[in-house]
């Protein structure tokens, strides 16, 4: 399969890229890892006039921990994240998620910024960012703004990014100790898009009860979303099986899956519950280990 024709530029600096987005407003599409974009171009399901390759822009793939939390450059690959010592030490949820995206080649080149900007309704990172209450930094010629992940994924393939903006960074706040988080993904076959993906994060209070919870779901609605009902079912409760089941039931009720080759709606809802429970069990175990 052969893409339609397009123009290609590879700016050397961020401001150049941003100016191009202004100049070619609506025509231009950012090329990062390419593993989401190129198959669509080849299937001719998308035909942007210009690709702006951001590979030469310095400083877009740093992974650093700051007082605000973990800052991950938009061009950081899934593998860079998966293998980063800081991530491994403090963010097991990210390790879970990064290690299960696509296959090794996809993880070598696919980027967190690309995944988030592309906003495939079944992609993994959005659920993680939602569960962790992360925020997303967008740059344009007029400066930058930070959008909470919970307001970023608007619809299928649609985000809060304006045509003149570039996703440069995601910021994942460090959860107060003791906390635990995990990603549970159900897939038909290694490397597939999720049938359902659940990112769960729990913080425990001094009384051992859940003091804060984040649940992000993917593949079971038009866009990844926060299962706020499930979160409410967790906070203030003991981190036990009954609580997890209640959260799972709430999350299933909140999900809006469609029928496709991964299964009918009823199955997907049931899998939401099942995978929410599994993610919460792991998250709770990890949280207990921090006590």
């Amino acid at each position, binding site marked *: *399969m052969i893409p339609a024709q397009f123009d290609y530029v590879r700016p050397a600096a961020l401001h150049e890229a941003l100016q191009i987005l202004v100049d070619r407003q609506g025509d231009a599409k950012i090329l990062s890892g390419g593993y989401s974009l190129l198959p669509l171009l080849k299937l001719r399901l998308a035909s942007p006039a210009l690709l702006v390759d951001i590979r030469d822009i310095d400083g877009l793939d740093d992974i650093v921990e700051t007082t605000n939390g973990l800052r991950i450059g938009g061009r950081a690959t899934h593998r860079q994240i998966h293998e980063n010592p800081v991530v491994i030490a403090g963010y097991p949820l990210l390790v879970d998620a990064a290690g299960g995206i696509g296959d090794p080649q996809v993880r070598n080149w696919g980027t967190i910024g690309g995944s988030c900007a592309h906003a495939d309704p079944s992609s993994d990172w959005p659920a993680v960012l939602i569960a962790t209450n992360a925020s997303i930094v967008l740059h344009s010629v007029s400066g930058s703004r930070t959008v909470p992940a919970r307001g970023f994924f608007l619809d299928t393939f649609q985000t809060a990014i304006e045509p003149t903006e570039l996703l440069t960074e995601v910021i994942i706040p460090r959860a107060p100790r003791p906390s635990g988080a995990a990603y549970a993904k159900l897939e038909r076959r290694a490397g597939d*898009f999720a049938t359902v993906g659940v990112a769960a994060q729990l913080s425990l209070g001094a009384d051992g009860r859940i003091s804060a919870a984040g649940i992000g779901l993917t593949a079971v609605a038009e866009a990844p979303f926060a299962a706020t009902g499930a979160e409410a079912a967790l906070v203030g409760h003991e981190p036990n099986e009954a609580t997890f089941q209640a959260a799972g039931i709430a999350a299933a009720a909140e999900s809006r899956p469609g029928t496709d080759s991964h299964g*009918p709606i009823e199955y997907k809802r*049931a899998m939401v519950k099942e995978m929410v429970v599994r993610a919460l069990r792991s998250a709770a175990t990890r949280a207990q280990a921090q006590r």
Partner: protein
Amino acid sequence: MADTGLKETPQTTEAVGGMGHSVKRKEDPRFIRGQGEYIDDLVLPGMLWLDIVRSPYAHATIKGIDASEALKIPGVLAVITGADLEKAGLHWMPTLAGDKQMVLPTDTVMYQSQEVCAVVATSRYIAADGVAAVLVDYEPLPVIVDPFKALEPDAFVLRPDRGPDKANNHIWHWESGDRAATDTAMEASEVRVSEDIYIPRIHVASIETCGCIADWNATRGQMTLHMTSQAPHAIRTVLALVSGLPEQNIRVKTHDIGGGFGGKVPVYPGYVLAVVASLTVGKPVKWIEDRSENLQADSFARDYHIHVELGATKAGKITSLKVKTVADHGYTDAAADPSKFPAGLFNVITGSYDFDNAFVEVDGVYTNKPPGGVAYRCSFRVTEAVHAIERMVDILAHDIGKDPAQLRMENFIQPDQFPYKTPTGWSYDSGDYPRALKKALDMIGYDDLRKEQLEKRAKGELMGIGISSFTEIVGAGPSHDFDILGIKMFDSCEIRVHPTGKVLARIGVQTQGQGHETTFAQIIAEELGFPVADIKIEYGDTDTAPYGLGTYASRSTPVAGAATAIAARKIRDKSRKIAAHLLEASEDDLEWTNGKFSVKGSPDKSKTIQEIAFAAYTNHPAGMEAGLEAVDYYDPPNLTFPFGSYICVVDIDRGTGQVTVRRFVAVDDCGNIINPMIVDGQIHGGLTMGFAPSLYEEISYDELGNNLAGTFMDYLLPTAVETPAWETGKTITPSPHHPIGAKGVGESATVGAPPAIANAVVDALWHLGVRNIDIPMTPQKIWAILNEKGVTA
């Protein structure tokens, strides 16, 4: 003639590398260096590209084709439509099953993604742009995707071209066995079990898609067609018949093939379009399918709706089998079955069991789909047959409370019953079914697994054990019964021994990765004593290779392998005469051992095959023709019947419905073995292609006829992660009629594996009241059952 003694240990030295040696493959050095020569690797001077406009509709009238925008694109040279082909009478072509198939439609498209017109351009990129620029005006028509609806009396007729006397969607009816006797036996049976089993449509999805380069040289009047074909000679003949080109001026050349599995037997419209395009523009024209075209428009396998009933005594002795089947062939019957067998060899459905009464009937039906019933590492409906009988035997065992292994043992055809005549007319050549099953049971530790299963079940865990004891039927075939479009299904080998004792052999079958360059050399090494390293095997070029029907249905070893052995023996016969001349001895006084003739009683008086070869050109006896070569066209006296017993252990995740194959033991018997390493590899691959449709792969259609698995994102080939670590074992029961006692093996595991997996999954759920689950046994399907039974986690 037959030398079918048991050859469990090699008779030749490792240096010679005859039968039984795991000789490393002679073809591999080019593949591991990336120097294989696949069709898309080939570039000819001045070559153009062809790309195809395909229908978005599964059924529609074409009101017009507007190619004007496409023709404005620089580099787009021509757009070929059905109307263009109609002028030359090439808009329809015959299928191998005697039906006809559109090359390009003139008025109606019959399936989604059907070829509508072709764009010829100077590069593959420009050709793709041309395809996107062609505007076709369609008027959608109603669509039938369900063969049962197609058979309803008021269903619209999909193929009015068949004439007013065939104003329905019924293609043919075929039956086998004795209906009345089977009915009587069935009614008298103490136990009757019946089931509706659907074997879904699947696609071979070889990693290399199909393609060709047609190269018309007008001055020489020569058409060279480089293509991905498992049957180049048959293609040449069909092309000659369809195009009117003289057959000697057509050369079909198949290079390395990146997997075939039966999908590269049929003639696809793309090949014909490339030929027409090359004839039109006078330059070589390349057509390469992309993956989505391959998954949507090539031929498909299975799509069999089987109603099966098994009768037995209370004690579990099978008495009768009755089968009624609807076969969805899509809009044309393009199957590659032998002419007399429109339902393939489906009547091998009595399997490995000894009983007297069986009746099988099949009805072929048209629907708005691409051709079905073709191939997926088994084209002749054996997979469907084995699945049905092995599922039913398991259901019977569970119903009467007998262990499925025990029930099989009690019903097997016994070794002393061979040759065994089945109630549907086959004569099984040889077999030892109890030995294979016993070996499999031992290898997997069956009794312990059954204990473990009971313990797990008590804890609510779902574990199942499934057995399949299959009988395969391969090596088509004896010419009295087997032909395709009238061409008898013999196969061939031609051997030339050069003066220096090096050998060139050409065979009529075409490798798709099975290792013919190695195994056929091993047959010659076995028969003549030339080391494998000195033997070169060629195939795939119709200008040089002897005529053969090609490689499919596991027929290479049973047919061309036999031809090779016989041709080698003809050379040995002549060598004996030359040796007698050289040794000044009587032919009767010579004995053949280890690649040389020696005088009986005087082993130091001998001539090696290499010395004899040299003499054949330098010192041959007076009155004898010089040279040392032979050709054989082998017409097998019977098919061969490989068999095996497979045992599968599965665990089911109650929360998600996911099935994990924990262990899989496969004991195969394919008679004498040419190369154990390659046989093992064939079984590993076959098992994986049995595993895939059991749990993952399915080509399904929505009600509009859209193929819903048009990429590898939705058509789920298993990766290394899911695929079990196969455990293989062997028994050897030689074929009594095959010259080297061998049987085919390529398809055995694909045929035998699915029921073992299905039986294991049903076994895990039987106590919940589950009797059958159609493949693919997807998580959503299993979960729905668990949910219904109230046992989800």
